[in-house]
């Protein structure tokens, strides 16, 4: 799996190179990136590390059901946020969740001119802090709302074994080196 992550990372760097429309110089420690003077600033996302546990970005990239989310992260150029020391809790909608959006919404958001809107929508799925399932249940029990990176507050609800955030049910949880990913079934819209 680690090899796969690396390959994906390489691919990501290459993609970033091809997609970039904002040439900018940035020093990078990885050999791939050091040739990529045309890339947008990837920052920590370009650090090569095969030893540490995978970070949120690496986990997302290696997860096929999150390819739409990853494409969105890349289009919004916020990769470095997901590899930062954080900690972050990311609620990651699966591809089907994006497919369920009104027709044309996703295509529209992926347009370069809508980069900031896209970034806001994705960032709304991230909470500063590391909240595992137990921590989320505590939020619900103690009546605390979850503070998201955009400044929104989302309600955490528990129904039997099901935990939902902002109305999106959590169907899986993956620990990452810099936080936690909860897989959700729908996109959390304002």
């Amino acid at each position, binding site marked *: 799996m680690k090899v796969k992550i690396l390959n994906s990372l390489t691919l990501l760097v290459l993609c970033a190179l091809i997609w970039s429309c904002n040439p900018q110089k940035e*020093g*990078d420690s990885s050999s791939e990136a050091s040739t990529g003077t045309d890339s947008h600033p990837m920052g920590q996302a370009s650090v090569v590390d095969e030893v540490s546990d995978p970070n949120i970005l690496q986990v997302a990239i290696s997860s096929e059901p999150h390819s739409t989310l990853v494409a969105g992260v890349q289009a919004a150029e916020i990769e470095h946020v997901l590899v930062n020391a954080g*900690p972050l809790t990311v609620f990651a909608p699966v591809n089907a969740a994006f497919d369920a959006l009104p027709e044309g919404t996703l295509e529209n958001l992926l347009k370069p001119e809508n980069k900031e809107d896209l970034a806001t929508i994705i960032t709304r799925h991230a909470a500063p802090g590391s909240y595992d399932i137990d921590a989320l249940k505590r939020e619900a029990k103690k009546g605390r709302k979850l503070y998201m990176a955009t400044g929104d507050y989302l309600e955490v609800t528990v129904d039997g074994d099901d935990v939902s955030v902002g109305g999106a049910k959590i169907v899986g949880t993956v620990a990452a080196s810099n936080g936690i990913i909860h897989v959700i079934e729908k996109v959390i819209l304002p």
Partner: protein
Amino acid sequence: MKTNIIKNTLFISALAFLFSCGQAGDRGGNGALSSNIAEKVYVAPGERDEQYAFLSGGYSGNLTVYGLPSGRLFKEIPVFSQFPTSGYGYSEETKPMLNTSFGFIPWDDLHHPDISQTNGELDGRWIFANGNNTPRIARISLTTFETEEIIEVPNSAGNHSSSFITENTEYVVAGTRFSVPVPQKDMPISEYKANFKGALTFIAVDQEHGHLDIKFQLLMPGFNYDLSHPGRGKSHGWFFFSTYNTEEANSLLEVNASQNDKDFIAAINWKKIEEYVNNGGGTKMPAKYAHNVYDESTHTATSTMKNEVLTVNPADVPGAIYFLPTPKSPHGCDVDPSGQYIIGSGKLSANITVHSFDKMLAAIDAEKFDGDAYGIPIINYDDVLAGSVQSGGLGPLHTEFDGKGNAYTTFFISSEVVKWKLGTWEVVDRKPTYYSVGHLMIPGGNSRKPHGKYLVAMNKITKDRYLPTGPEMEHSAQIYDISGEKMELLYDFPTHGEPHYAAGCDADLLVNNSKKIYRIDENNHPYAIKSPAEARVERDGKEVHIYMSTIRSHFTPDNIEGIKVGDKVYFHITNHEQDFDVPHGFSMIGQRTSEILVMPGQTKTSLWEPERVGVWPFYCTDFCSALHQEMQGYIRVSPANSNIELSYTLDGDDI
């Protein structure tokens, strides 16, 4: 495009060279020449240096890690000194590292780092260093960049001709500067002569783990043993030590140890002595010395007191030890990459003396001796001398090599590095240093295969080189490019403590071995917890053990009650991060120790003995995350006779 730039700069520098009139070393700007030099040391943001340089910290007791050619400081590795920056020597796990037969000693004077070798070439496994003051040898891992082992050296004092290694790292060698009574006893100082001994200690290195064990101590005449180097290549199996004070003076040495026209380089056939010892030779002598080993798997050091050492009397191993007469209180004792030349730099001499290994063997065969000293044959000076470098400098100290037939010697008094040719002894270049240079270092310059592109000169006097900072200035070091016929001064940077000596190597040798994290599943610390869910607090009489977890961005538990005045509270902190470069720290108000830094996957212990009733905070000292400032907790301390129950929580809940 880069090639073009290089070509252009080469062209420009060639032009500049043609136009220049020997201004290298000038401090002012030199137009094209200066910009060319700047490019040679400029490592752009995000790019990496070509080489590592490990500079000793001298009286700081530490080892500093720099990059070449940038001169950037990467790390300070604590070795012989307590170091609050990491908690080394303060945490319960590392306190044993500084244990000695004299008890806990928080400091030493670190002088001569040497990187391990295989077949005479640097292999990048470990770096060794000596503590001068309370004689010790340390082994530092070049994967974790942590001190893993320290062994005390008995019967030694001012452990200066150390810690040099043989060419397969069979031994790390430690020679005494001061001769002393062996064993120590109460006697008049004036009876030094013929009664004091100089111990040369050969410490065997276990090849798998690097563990150190004193194989034997050679009890030499009571001279001062100053520096040493191993034979290599053809002279592998021999070790060479410079001596001064062959007069055996015990006072005002600056005069009384400068009487003899020549002192000696002692040539020791250690293979012969090893064989003698392996066949049951030597005398076991009672001795007390500490052996401290850090175990990476338990993250804990243990200190063992040893009580015996094997000593060898030179008279018992005839044919193993000879003296090579060398003018005039020789300091440096260096061996060229081929192993043929042994270079002695008499600090009071203007010239550099070079002995020949081949001539030495021939003279021994033909018994061309000029008497003996305490039964050790003195070889005729003319029968061992290969040549003498008429340097024109003053105060030669140390020599290193570039592997291309050149030697580079520092001159303290005339503040310069002199380049000369092995074999012809002709001086080919000289460049000033700023000021009063001691050692110099060429990466690998102390091996069969120097990685010679840069030379670092380490100076004792700084004066006006940098912005003034009061009466004390950090020492200075200068980097020279030695890839051409003439040396070129590239850069000048301040160092920390005394950069007494250094070792260096190509970055490639170490980069891929450098550890990123410790695996939590491989953590065998007795107080480790494998997950935050195992966090707990246990009382055992007056001792309280807190099994605490850190992960961004909280401690588990972070509220603890039921601690009492007079308790001994041990915080056993396991960092559950598995992410490179994300340590957490810990500090407690009023704690009579330093903070500790806990690496990912590691467990460390900090002791607190609460003295006052109250509610006392602790926090994470390392800026770990966006919520670092939230990473804190409280401990309630009640009176000694209180009956508050022990409790511990996170977010108000039991764990």
